[in-house]
């Protein structure tokens, strides 16, 4: 079993500001990893999950944002969860594996026996202690979390084929054009420190090829690795694919929920999944009420302690209300995220939307969308400080910060 010597270090990749523009317009005001899902920052969820790992020594957040954007959060979460969290800024892109390699000295400082690598923009139950146990049983270099998806949607991800008895990874392809498998890569991994040797191997191989290109013009014409710098190593194409079938890598399958959080619409869906999870793991976080002393609550709802909700309002299912929000009399909220300092006036209705910080929703106004999380305008997004005047209707639209809507709009992006 795990001895007291076996420390674990977790690394969470958080990305950067110019990398994912798909999270706009919300990412215009806040780094995506800090956007709240079910009342907690997106990155807070994997951090809490890491805390369940025995002998967790350190958590590193690795990304391209400025240090100051994470300073407050890192200090507050370290305090709250009593676990050392540190933000490390990558100076230039190294690829998903290269980034890990770049900080290997820091990671190895605690002499960990295992390294957990997670992507921040993944909504998941993060079954890390069970995965770690499975990894120890397999005895390989790495274990990948996988989930079964519908065959039609598998092409968007990394598809894996594993041996059903030994769970060994036999084959891995990133976003294939033809169907390979309905098991996909969840973006959660456990490695032993020899992963660094494997990553270094890729760099060296690339360096040798670069040298070869200088002497042989034929090599120079090979398209495969032509433009990648030697220290740019991608986890999927450069490590997982080549090592599949060589008894180094294994899979662990989760049957719980899993979603990629790339767009604002998906953040609403993910918030709902985490709220549903709270019902089992932290029911004290969810709100309750029946319309007498507190507002009527239906389904899973999170309300920040400083938010004020009128008792005649009806909230839920899948609603998350952030700090200092004010929800007026007779308001109906369904499937939405209400951010800090929002004011929703009497009798307004919000369905399938995200209402940005400091916005104001007028009396009898209606902010709604179809609720199709994958459609571009499937969830209505109001940016920071948007004013929707009384009785105005906003449907399937995205409104950038600091706008005032005094006429109704449908299917529009308002800059």
């Amino acid at each position: 079993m795990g001895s007291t010597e076996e420390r674990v270090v977790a690394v969470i990749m958080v990305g950067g500001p110019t990398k994912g523009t798909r999270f706009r317009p919300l990412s215009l005001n806040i780094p995506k990893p800090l956007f709240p899902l079910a009342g907690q920052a997106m990155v807070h969820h994997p951090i809490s999950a890491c805390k369940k790992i025995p002998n967790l020594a350190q958590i590193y957040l690795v990304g391209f944002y400025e240090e100051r954007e994470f300073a407050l959060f890192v200090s507050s979460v370290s305090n709250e969860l009593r676990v050392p969290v540190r933000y490390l800024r990558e100076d230039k892109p190294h690829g998903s594996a290269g980034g890990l390699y770049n900080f290997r000295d820091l990671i190895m400082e605690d002499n960990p026996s295992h390294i957990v690598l997670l992507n921040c923009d993944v909504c998941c139950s993060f079954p890390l202690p069970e995965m770690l146990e499975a990894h120890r049983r397999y005895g390989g270099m790495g274990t990948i979390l996988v989930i079964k998806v519908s065959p039609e949607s598998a092409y968007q991800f990394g598809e894996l084929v594993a041996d059903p008895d030994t769970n060994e990874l036999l084959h891995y392809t990133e976003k294939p054009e033809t169907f390979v498998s309905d098991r996909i890569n969840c973006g959660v991994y456990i490695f032993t420190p020899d992963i660094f040797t494997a990553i270094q191997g890729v760099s060296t191989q690339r360096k040798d090829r670069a040298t070869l290109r200088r002497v042989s013009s034929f090599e120079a014409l090979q398209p495969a690795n032509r433009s990648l710098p030697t220290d740019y190593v991608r986890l999927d194409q450069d490590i997982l694919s080549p090592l599949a079938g060589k008894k180094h890598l294994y899979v662990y399958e989760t049957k719980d929920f899993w979603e990629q959080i790339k767009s604002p619409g998906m953040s609403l869906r993910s918030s709902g999944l985490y709220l549903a999870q709270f019902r089992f793991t932290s029911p004290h976080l969810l709100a309750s009420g029946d319309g007498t002393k507190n507002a009527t609550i239906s389904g899973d709802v999170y309300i920040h302690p400083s938010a004020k909700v009128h008792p005649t309002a009806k909230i839920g299912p899948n609603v998350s209300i952030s700090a200092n929000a004010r929800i007026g009399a007779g308001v109906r909220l369904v499937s939405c995220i209400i951010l800090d300092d929002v004011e929703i006036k009497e009798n307004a209705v919000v369905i399938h939307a995200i209402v940005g910080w400091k916005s104001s929703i007028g009396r009898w106004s209606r902010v709604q969308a179809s609720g199709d999380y994958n459609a571009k305008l499937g969830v209505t997004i109001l940016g920071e400080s948007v004013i929707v005047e009384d009785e105005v209707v906003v449907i399937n639209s995205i409104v950038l910060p600091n706008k005032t809507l005094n006429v109704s709009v449908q299917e529009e992006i308002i800059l």
Partner: protein
Amino acid sequence: MKALILVGGFGTRLRPLTLSVPKPLVEFANKPMILHQIEALKAIGVTEVVLAINYQPEVMLNFLKEFETKLGIKITCSQETEPLGTAGPLALARDNLVDDSGEPFFVLNSDVISEYPLQEMIDFHKSHGGEASILVTKVDEPSKYGVVVMEESTGQVERFVEKPKVFVGNKINAGIYLLNPSVLDQIELRPTSIEKEVFPNIAAEKKLYAMVLPGFWMDIGQPRDYITGLRLYLDSLKKKSSPKLAFGPHIIGNVLVDESAKIGEGCLIGPDVAIGSGCIVESGVRLSRCTIMRGVRVKKHACISSSIIGWHSTVGQWARVENMTILGEDVHVCDEIYSNGGVVLPHKEIKSSILNPEIVM
């Protein structure tokens, strides 16, 4: 003499450009919008300009220090903590605008460009002896605006009519005013509209006079009008035989090219084009009716028309960009791409053609 420039809000109509830079600092004809006005004010002897702002004061303040020294004029900021409308900011800046001299002060709207006949306006103000003077401009479709109904010979203003349904006149408020300090006594420090509350009162007392703006006028607060405004501005430069206009075999019509920009062989530039500092226009490029901001690279054989290309963007080889395409800062249009009215937010790469006007976030 003193002046106030109403800078105000977030410039949302000029997005995506204003997502990178506050609106007054967005360049127009290769010069920050607000600098056109500050220079015109300095030229007629204004010694202090107050900017009434409510957004990003830090960025503005840095810019101002630089121009205070360069121009030798005092520039201060008056920051609204809540939006005060079009008249409230004057009350807020009262102490800066009024001194013992009793001289009138100018009020300008930051979105407006024109020839700024400020000296003529001072003379007009002295001659009628009223309390306030406003510039008006003649437009084709007055119902879109606030019309100023005035007595033609004296210029005395009778009344304002907002978006009139029948024809009452074709002169609209051009957003440039010269006011006696006594006007400030009528403005409270609260959200107030100068057109709806203050001016109608002064007009009722028969103390408000309007002068018709000679020359061009444009509100360049949104992309379509910005592009039209550039044409009018360059036209007026031409009438004054300004040496700033470019000439050469590859230039058609009125074109402004910053001296640090490089233009390749076989290009055809113009009419109505402004090319900012540090731009590189490679060979075989066609540019017409467009603004190319600082640091842009336009690659070979590309064709850009009726568009605005944001700072440090690139337009790929053989790309065709037209019909009110607005590229924000650091946008890269790949080779051979076609953009028909794409409005692209900063830091994007356009890898597939935009066939119909669309916002790309």
